[in-house]
């Protein structure tokens, strides 16, 4: 059963990654990142079950905590950018280039 979960995890991770690549709204990009993190969490949890050890769940727990912190800061950054640029598109913040 474990590899079912792993396959699901891989598919969702890839969907998240593709979403990061194709979406321009910074908030949606963030959501896709969250999706990727959740996909890995699923893998961790199913591995924990497979090995009969709680360490995988602990890792998933820490990932959640870090994701929460990341979301807070990331959304604050999005807010700040929106205030100065009146836009939440990641393509509009492209001054740092050649």
């Amino acid at each position, binding site marked *: 059963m474990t590899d079912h979960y792993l396959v699901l995890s891989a598919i969702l991770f890839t969907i998240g*990654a593709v979403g*990061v*690549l*194709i979406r*321009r709204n910074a908030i949606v990009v963030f959501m896709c990142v969250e999706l990727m993190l959740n996909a890995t969490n699923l893998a961790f949890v199913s591995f924990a079950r497979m090995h009969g050890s709680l360490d995988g769940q602990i890792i998933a727990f820490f990932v959640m905590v870090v994701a929460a912190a990341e979301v807070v800061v990331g959304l604050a950054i999005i807010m700040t950018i929106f205030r100065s640029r009146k836009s939440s598109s*990641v*393509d509009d*913040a*492209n*001054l*740092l*280039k*050649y």
Partner: protein
Amino acid sequence: MTTMNAALAAGEVVQHPHAATGVLSATWLLIALPLAGAAILLLGGRRTDKWGHLLGTAMSLGAFLVGALAFAAMLGQKGDDRTNLVHLFQYIPAGSLNVDMNLWIDPLSISFVLLITGVGSLIHIYSIGYMAHDPDRRRFFAYLNLFVAAMLLLVLADNYIGLYIGWEGVGLASYLLIGFWQYKPSAATAAKKAFIVNRVGDFGLSVAVMVMFATFGSLSFQNVFGHASEASHGTVTAIGLLLLLGACGKSAQLPLQSWLLDAMEGPTPVSALIHAATMVTAGVYLIVRSHVIFELSPDARLLVTIVGAATLLAGAIIGCAKDDIKKALAGSTMSQIGYMVLAAGLGRPGYVFAIAHLIAHGFFKAGLFLGAGSVMHAMNDDVNMRKYGGLRKYMPITFATFGLGYLAIIGFPGLSGWWTKDGIIDAAFEKGGTSGQILGWLALLGAGITAYYMSRVMFMTFFGEPRWDEDVHPHESPRVMTIPLILLAIGSIAGGAFLIAGDRFANFLAPVVGEPEAGHKLITPYTVIVFALMVVGVGLAYVQYLRRPIPRTAPAGNVATTFARRDLYGDALNESLFMRPGQWLTRLTVYFDNRGVDGLVNGLAAFIGGTSGRVRRVQTGFVRSYALSMFVGAALVVAALFLVRI
């Protein structure tokens, strides 16, 4: 001891110096006095204008006095003890190169000291009058003192480094003096030419010094000469040839002769000093001083004689064609130095005659040059002999002294030149073999030509009808100029006899160059031939320049005359062989630098710049592009992991 035995077996003379005592230990004053004079006059500036010439002359005379006292002290020593060493200071204590600065006082160097300071002092005195109206007289005397000091260091140093310093000092002083009237472009060019041509010779000397250090590990005369016989034949020959190159530069021998004639751009006393007492004699000194090396290498010696013989003929031929009195005399100097180099190359019997001829030449050539200066003074600084004529009535003292110098140089029996030059010719024939014959006959021929061109100078200047410019009013020079002339004339008369008669000089120099061979005959068949050739030369000149009127402008002349007038095409040769290729090489290098090196560098830079300009377009500023590359990278990492693990 084995070293000494080996050296003795090779027939060399090994000098064993001992620490000098008494007056001899004060010989550092020889260099210090004129050097101090130069320093005071140069640093003192215009404050010393009033008495600068007197100080300079006093310093030179003081050095002469010290030299004379040292000479007297040396005469009091026994023959083998006459090599004295005065320790000055430790000059270069650097690892295995350890140079002590000592003065090497032996009969050879003391002879030079007396010549340099004696004739030099007379030229100093003469210059007081000659340069009386020059605003820069003080500077002139400072340079004269510097010249004398450098030359004294050259002949007194006990090692090749000290000799080299003096050598370069002489080059510097000659540059300063030849270009003394630097506002004249010709003088500035001549000074540069002298310096640059001398550099070629200096290069040879410096390489010789390096080779000596590499071979012997030391540069003092004692060590180099003591161990010379241990070095390989090739090394010794190389050193000898390099030393010869140095001597050629300083002594204006072929092929580095071209600077000497142009050096006439300097004031006349400078010419006298360069030609009689300092500078050109340095090459002869170098060869004689290094005779141990030359004696070990017959090849080098042969080349020395060839150079000497070629130069003595070349100088004589150039002297025949010049209408400029100073240039005619300069050609004669080349020729006479050629005799000395020839003699020095001949070996044991020749050294004595080389130095004796050098000293005799110092007297009569200084007299001739100073006499020429006196004549120029009378003729408003005109140097063209075609505008002279009949001056003997107006300048009796100059005429008498110049005439005595003239008789000395052509080898009139009894006068200085006869004693020494004939000795050289005899020595050439005594060398034996075909080469001896050839060298001897060439020297004979040179003697004849010498008589011809010197008679030409004499007749054109002092005899015949006046051909002066209209505003010229000849007059005898002041006493400060004539007294040195008289003293030099006395030297021209008696110097040779004093040195040669009874082998006096040969015995004196014996500790340096070896015992003279017994039984040097004064009159040989060759001396008769020399005399005959001399008479022929004088007669030819008499017919050409006294019986016939001399045109005020030079006739066109034939090919030979043009050849001689153009200094045997020496300058043209240098120009086509070195200057033009050098210029082309420079242009080629510049072109290569601009196009090749710069092109490569700029091209590379442009390539990198262009590539960067294109590659930087990858940095679009779009986060999603970067994310894409990261994702691709992650995919590749995963793929790589699989490839490794599966």
